[in-house]
């Protein structure tokens, strides 16, 4: 009996458990999935909570609903992995052995990394929305807020869902307009990147949208600390930006269990071959989702496309065959732009987001790098797709490889 161990039962781990359990013969393989949390969070939904569009119950479901029945489930904190001896130690002292591992422990926010961020004003005037707790605290703050200077800051690259902070300010613009106080709210978007986004065409489109919506962009700002008394953020080169409310995307890091295992880089992300998605250091470990250090977005869509590659390569590895499937870094992100509209970007390691239609050339229905109502419905539908199709590892009517069809290159 060979043991396959999936660490992390979030988006990526759950998809993998479902795919593997369908394929593998249970008299030969035992599958176990490990997570510390019994609740599954629909993270894309967290974005909508501060504006009262979704509430808590729209984004949580028991993890157990999504794990296949014939898979062992272990709830508990992973202490560390001993990859030389194919063992995982849990914080409660339990030991798990494995022959093959899928590492899918994701990323988490670390406000503690920035002095003054998680301090006196935390959840009073300084918020984040990447956790349910944070998103709900910000919702409660917005209920009574009369307006002032709202600053959104991205602490550090990389962070998961790189479009989420953009969507946040677009939705904030719409929200404050709808409740009638937009003229009293000053919105500033502060980023360590050279512009609203990284790739030229998307940066241009999103930069123009920012201007249209009267949102200021402060690029190349790398936050050193937050001054709680004077309510300002300060960069390493001593630029200062005052705020009445600060919405932060804190430093993102992999779990400390990776650090304790000596398996990560300086942000606890795991060195991973960007094509095969196998760990660079251990032949029997594949890395899926946000936990990997591959140079593409940390996003659910990426984990979804990558899961096809990990699945295929793990199957090959189990049978001692060469790893043939190659990941292309495919990412596909809906961007909510407010007032019932949205945009979409589709890209990979080599191709930046381009305008056009998706997924069908010339037809769409979605418009790439365009602001349309249909794109917004795509995002709305995504929640249903996420719970009912994606997590269950069912086939989506989309190719995992990025396609140039429908994209305009000039």
């Amino acid at each position, binding site marked *: 009996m060979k043991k396959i161990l999936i660490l992390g039962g979030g988006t990526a781990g759950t998809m993998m458990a479902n795919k593997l359990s369908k394929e593998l013969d249970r008299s030969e393989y035992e599958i176990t999935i490990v997570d510390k949390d019994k609740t599954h969070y629909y993270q894309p939904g967290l974005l909508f909570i501060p504006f009262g569009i979704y509430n808590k119950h729209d984004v949580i479901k028991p993890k157990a609903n999504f794990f296949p029945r014939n898979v062992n489930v272990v709830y508990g904190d992973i202490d560390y992995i001993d990859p030389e001896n194919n063992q995982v130690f849990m914080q409660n002292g339990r030991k798990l052995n494995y022959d093959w591992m899928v590492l899918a422990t994701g990323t988490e926010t670390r406000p503690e990394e920035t002095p003054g961020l998680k301090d006196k004003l935390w959840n009073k005037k300084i918020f984040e929305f990447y956790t349910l707790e944070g998103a709900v605290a910000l919702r409660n703050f917005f209920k009574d807020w009369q307006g002032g200077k709202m600053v959104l800051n991205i602490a550090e*690259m990389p962070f998961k869902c790189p479009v989420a902070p953009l969507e946040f300010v677009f939705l904030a613009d719409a929200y404050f307009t709808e409740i009638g106080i937009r003229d009293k709210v000053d919105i500033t978007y502060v980023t360590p990147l050279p512009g609203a986004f*990284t790739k030229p065409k998307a940066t241009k489109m999103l930069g123009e949208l920012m201007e249209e919506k009267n949102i200021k962009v402060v690029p190349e700002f*790398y936050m050193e600390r937050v001054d709680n008394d004077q309510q300002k953020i300060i960069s*390493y080169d001593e630029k200062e930006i005052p705020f009445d409310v600060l919405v932060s995307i804190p430093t993102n890091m992999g779990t400390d269990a990776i650090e304790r295992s000596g398996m990560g880089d*300086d942000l606890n992300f795991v060195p991973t071959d960007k094509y095969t998605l196998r760990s660079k250091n251990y032949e029997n470990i594949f890395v899926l989702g946000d936990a990997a250090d591959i140079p593409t977005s940390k996003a659910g869509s990426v984990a979804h496309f990558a899961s096809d590659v990990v699945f295929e390569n793990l199957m090959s590895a189990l049978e001692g065959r060469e790893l043939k499937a190659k990941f292309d870094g495919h*990412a596909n992100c809906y961007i909510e732009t407010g007032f019932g509209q949205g945009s979409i970007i589709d890209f990979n390691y080599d191709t930046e987001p381009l305008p056009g239609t998706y997924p069908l050339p010339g037809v769409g229905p979605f418009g790439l790098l365009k602001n349309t109502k249909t794109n917004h419905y795509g995002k709305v539908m995504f929640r249903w797709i996420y719970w009912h199709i994606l997590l269950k590892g069912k086939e989506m009517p989309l190719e995992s490889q990025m396609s140039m069809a429908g994209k305009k290159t000039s």
Partner: protein
Amino acid sequence: MATQTIAGKEVDLNEDGYLTDHTQWNEAIAKELAKEEGIELTDEHMKVLNYLREKYAEGESLSIRKVGKSGIVDIKGLYKLFPGGPLKISSRLAGIPKPQSCV
């Protein structure tokens, strides 16, 4: 891409002014490139450039955080040495590719 003579040596630069072949690099070239950025290279600068070249050769990806933890200079110090875009500028002077900021 363009070929240019810097400090008496022919080097290939891409459209952003980065060396396309890091083996063409030498200290004199770094000094010339630094002048374009308005920086007078000191030993402190050179330590950073050598660190970057070393890590690049080892195939590691570089970030401001990583340089800040290198023990050579902290992040604040790095900004003082290479004002504006510390990793972008220091990478250019070190003759290695422009750092990718992934999305």
